[in-house]
């Protein structure tokens, strides 16, 4: 193996381990709906006004929010757990 190949292999292994560790962390505890809602409300203040004025939950219905949040999750690179809490929060007001 060439040196650069070995380096690449090392980096790949590291990323893999990191992903596994993070997934394990994430799977640790399943929050309840109320916990998600409360977190979502807070995160709405944290994230949703960063790029544009925050859009309120009542503007769209539940199904629309599912789609729009997927859009925002990709566009704004929202962490998965945060996106889920935001989804629960925004859906609840319709």
């Amino acid at each position: 193996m060439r040196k650069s190949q070995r380096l690449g292999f090392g980096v790949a292994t590291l990323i893999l381990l990191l992903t596994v560790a993070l997934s394990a962390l994430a799977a640790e505890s399943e929050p309840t709906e109320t916990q998600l809602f409360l977190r979502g409300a807070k995160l709405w203040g944290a994230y949703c006004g960063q790029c544009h004025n925050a859009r309120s939950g009542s503007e769209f219905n539940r199904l629309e929010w599912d789609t729009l949040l997927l859009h925002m999750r990709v566009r704004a690179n929202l962490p998965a757990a945060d996106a889920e809490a935001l989804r629960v929060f925004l859906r609840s007001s319709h």
Partner: protein
Amino acid sequence: MSSLGNNKYGNRSWPRSLTLGVFLLFLSIGVGGLSPTPAGAEPDLRQELEGLKAQLERDRTQMEQDRQRIEQLERQFQSVETKSEEKNKALEEKITKQALDQPTFGQYLDRFAGEHRLSIAGYGFSGFDWQERANTNTFSAGFEPIFLYRLSDRLLFEGDLELKLEDTETSVDLEYAQVDYIVNDYLTVVAGKFLLPFGEFIERQHQVWINKLVSRPLPFREGDEGGLLPFSELGAQVRGAIPLGYGEGTRAEYSLYMTNGPRFASDERGAFFEANNTDQNRAKGYGARIGVDLLPYDAGMGRLRLGASTFDGQWSSHNKLWFTSWGLDAVYQNGPLALRGEYLQTRRAMPTSIPDDKGEGWYIQAAYLLQAVPVPYLNHTELIVRYSGQNQNALTADALAEGFLRNPRLVAFGLDYWIAPSVVWKLEYDRDLPAKARDSNALLTQFAVGF
């Protein structure tokens, strides 16, 4: 007898009447012999008559029975009819009730939209521009629908059609058309045509209802308007985020991509970017942006996001000449205050003996929402100021002729009135710096809606 004898024919008439009587007798016998019912066949006739009577009687009873049967059938039929009518009525009632149970047509539509998961978003604007330098004095309008199709919780298609009014015609531009697939919590794959994730402005700020000013920062003008980067590219991308874990709302984000790469309108120095829809060379373009949200939301110190980007690729179709670029971006928000800034440098390698084509650009912007002012209307008003600049060591002859500058500077003052979070009326005054005596002012206004 005397009467007879008194008859005029009295005495001589009796032998005549006798003859007549005999004749009649014979006649009657003769006729009797001729008759079909001789006086002797009478009992047969009666019998026959009786038979016929009986037959008639039977027929009559049969008829009566038939009539009764028909009546019965009619009654049965009627009852069946009323029953089915009742059933129909019940069914109708059921259907109406069901229909009423779906109270609004809107909800029915929702159900439809839900099944198909299609949402239409986007934005539109109308405005008026008066620019001294460019000598414009015109109304303007634009419309940009976005189609979002969620195929599953992991799979989204997004397409953005930009409908633009150009000098004498309307143009359609596919700003982006991409498929996003969420592989896991930390990785999303994007393929298609996407907005360049370089800095903040292109991907996250240029939309008319998001951009607080009518104009764009100088280095982020699009295409042949004179900016330093392409707005969208065709390729594939991986992106995602990792929570930093020391507080709500802290995270690191990344976008890594490979595209058809940069392409210029000509080999001339200072040439503008062009779409590279079919790759003109075998080489690809590569880019990345990493960003961090540093302040925990609960700390109450506001929000701070920092990012660094690069986009590079061989631009020439016949030489291995590279275009390289890098940039930094920062956002700080606290309550009604929002500060943004970006800086970038670009370099386009030219064939030997020709100096490299170099560019540099920046902007800083401050916005303050007068939300605390307890005056109606005023508390929906936002004040904005932005300073942007660009340096280029070369411009094409055409661009120079059109009035482009090598080192433009622009100060823009804005006053926005927010009717809703995504509905705004903007007023802007621009001043070119360094001011030339005559041609340095512009007034712009725009009504923008995001939906």
